[in-house]
Every structure is written in C-alpha cells, then in structure tokens.
C-alpha cells in the first residue's frame, strides 16, 4: 500500500506525518482542508450519481447505475422500514445520505497510502489525510446532526411539555426526589448516542489507517535497510489481506452508521 516514503524518515516521523492534517487557521478556528475537500468532493460525486440515477425514467427493468442505486435504496428503505413504523420518507433520505457518503469516505482508506499525499505534495501541501471519517470532526459532524434530529423527533412526537416532563419523570417516576437522578440518567443516555456513534466510526477508520501505515513500514524497512526481500513480500501480503478485510469494515461501519440513527430516532419517539 505504500509507495516510497521520504528517505531518512524514521517510522515515527512517517506515521506522525501521515496523521497530520492539512490545516488553515489557528485554535478552535482551525480548518482541516484535507477533510473538508475530500468529504465535499465525495458529497458532490455521491449526490451527482444519485441524482442522475434518480432522473432516469426507466419504463421496464432498471439497468446500470439506476439498478445499482435502486438496489442501495431498497436496502436502506428495507432497513428503515424494519425499525421505524411511521412516515419514513425523511429517515430513508437520512439513511441513504449517511450510508452512501460514509461508504465513499471510508473507501478513501483503500487508496494507496502515500498516493494522495504525493499528489497533494505536487500542489505544495505538506500534509494530506485522505479519510474524512478518520478525522473526529467528520464523524462528530454527522453525529451532531443526528443528535439534533433525535431531540427534534422526540419533541415532535411528545410535544415540548411531554419531552421536558420525560427529562424529570423517566425512568424513575415523577417523585421530586427522583428529578435529579432522572435528569442525570437522561443526559447520559442522550449524550452517549452521538458520542458512541461518532467514536465508533472514527475509531474503526483511524485504526484501519494506522494498520495500513504499519504495514507500509514493513516495505520501508526493506527500502532503507538490508531487512531482506521477506519484508517486502510481507508488506504485499499483509497489505492485500488488510485491504480485502477493510472492504468489509468500510461497508459494515457505514451500515452501522446508517442503522443506529434510525434506531435512536425510533426510540426517541417512544413514550416512557
């Protein structure tokens, strides 16, 4: 997975280099240009593919891109329908967005590790991380939107009064003594959802990225020392094996990120 790394670089330098974002700004107002650029490009690509597929007016059996997008749509629709029993039109759109976009972002992990950085280097960028979902900002952004949707759906189902009442009255009952424990537990429950959602995806993709780097270091050891041809072969074998396995993780994590928000929203509408 790795092309030649800079000579004279230590393994630590190599990994740190690959984990450093291309940034502008400072303090909180720092922007990861690589994350934003890649995720926005993928959003454009995914959006363009989906919209062009949706515009096809197929009279008979769908073909090509249209058939593929319909397959994805029916997969998402089926999953949402199993979980949420109500008007699911918006949730299907949400699931579709999350699934396709996250698959695209996760799949960036399968690009040759040093290729994006090298290309970015041609444009004068010193650092470039190509997997937006291995950036906590990328996953937190989606989790925050889901967080707002959870609260919004809950209020819509119960009314603002009912929603606030649930904060103090569930799950231990409406005894004033239980208000504080209730609020505490509800806060934990509510916060845990976006945190676990974002951390799970981030952790998986970050770990996958690191593993690709470690595998790449095998080949680097061959390149800079007399480690032997075995290391190079090891890099090829492990790199290929991890890449194949990673395809599974790419899809699985995207699937989880599609299903869990729907589950959370479905739970948020339930009355306690």
């Amino acid at each position, binding site marked *: 997975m790795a092309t030649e790394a800079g000579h004279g670089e230590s393994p630590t330098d190599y990994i740190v280099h690959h984990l450093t974002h291309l940034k502008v700004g400072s303090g909180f107002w720092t*922007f990861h240009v690589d994350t*934003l650029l890649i995720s926005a490009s993928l*959003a454009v690509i995914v959006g363009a593919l989906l*919209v062009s597929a949706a515009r096809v007016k197929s009279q008979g059996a769908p073909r090509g891109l249209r058939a593929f997008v319909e397959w994805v749509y*029916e997969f998402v629709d089926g999953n949402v329908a199993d979980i949420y029993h109500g008007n699911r*039109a*918006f949730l299907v759109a949400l699931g579709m967005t999350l699934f396709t976009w996250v698959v695209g972002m996760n799949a960036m992990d399968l690009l040759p590790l040093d290729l994006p950085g090298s290309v970015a280097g041609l444009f004068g960028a010193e650092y470039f991380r190509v997997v937006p979902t291995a950036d906590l900002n990328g996953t937190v*952004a989606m989790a925050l939107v889901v967080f707002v949707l959870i609260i919004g759906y809950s209020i819509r189902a119960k009314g603002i009064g009912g929603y606030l009442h649930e904060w103090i009255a569930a799950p231990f009952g409406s005894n004033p003594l239980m208000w504080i424990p209730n609020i505490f537990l509800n806060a934990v429950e509510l916060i845990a959802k976006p945190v676990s959602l974002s951390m799970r995806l981030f952790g998986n993709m970050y770990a996958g990225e690191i593993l690709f780097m470690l595998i790449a270091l095998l080949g680097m050891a061959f390149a800079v020392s007399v480690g032997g041809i075995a290391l190079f072969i090891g890099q090829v074998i492990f790199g290929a094996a991890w890449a194949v396995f990673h395809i599974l993780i790419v899809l699985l994590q995207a699937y989880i990120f599609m299903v869990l928000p729907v589950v959370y929203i479905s739970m948020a509408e339930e009355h306690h």
Partner: protein
Amino acid sequence: MTINATFIGQIIVFLILLWVIAKYVTPAMAAEIDARNRKIADGLAAAEKGQKDLAEATTRADAIVREARERAKQIEDQAARRSNEAVEAAKQIAQTESARIVSAAREEASSETNRARDQLRKEFGTLVVTGAARLLEREVDAKTHAQLLDKLADEIARG
C-alpha cells in the same frame, strides 16, 4: 484527534447532501419503485386472471366437444337404425313380391295344365266317338246321337 471548526464545515456539507438526496433522490425513487411494484402486481393479477379464464374456456370447450360427440353418436345410431329398418322393409316387400310372383306363376301353370287336360279330354272324346263309329261301321248320326255324344264327351271331360 482534535475537535475544531472543521466539524462546522462538515455539518454544512452533510446538510447540503442530505437536502439534495431528500429532495431529488428518495422521493423520485420511492414514487417510481412504488409505481413499478404496482405495475408488476397488476401484471401478475392479470396473468392469474388470464390463466383462470383459460381454464374456464378449456372446461367449456371440453363440455362442448363432449356434447357434440354424444350428438354425433346419437345421429349415427339413428342412421343405423333407420337403414336397418329400410333394409328390413325392402326385404319384406321383396319377399311379398316374390311370393306373389311365385303364386301367380303357379296359378298360371295349373290353369295351363287344366286347359291342356280339358283339350286332351275333348280330343280324346272325339277320338273315342270316331273310334266307336268305325267300330260300329256306321256313321253315328251326330244329330240323333248328339245328346248321347255330348253326355259321353262330358263324362270324359269330367274325367
């Protein structure tokens, strides 16, 4: 691993993509897939109906064929019966006719025989009279003995 303003940009990108998909992708997909599913269901229903109609028509056709066969058999039987009757009638007529012809022939033959016999007797009578006259060597006077002769001839003729 730091949270910074990047996530705000990510939220904006996410919301734009979500809006595009919710507006232009999923409703169109849902509408068309629903329409297609309905069309397929209609097609299946129509096929089922067609099959049922076919089965019904087959049953009806079978009944008609069976009935026709029965009628044909009836007609055949009737024709056979009629032809038998005709043959029988013809036979009857032929028999009657032949009997009539035979009896007529027989009658004619017997009358012919009788006539021949009468003539023979008559001739025999004449012969006897002639013979007797020659025997008596005298002419029997036909006039005087006419009564006698006639009686004799009559007796002969009567046999």
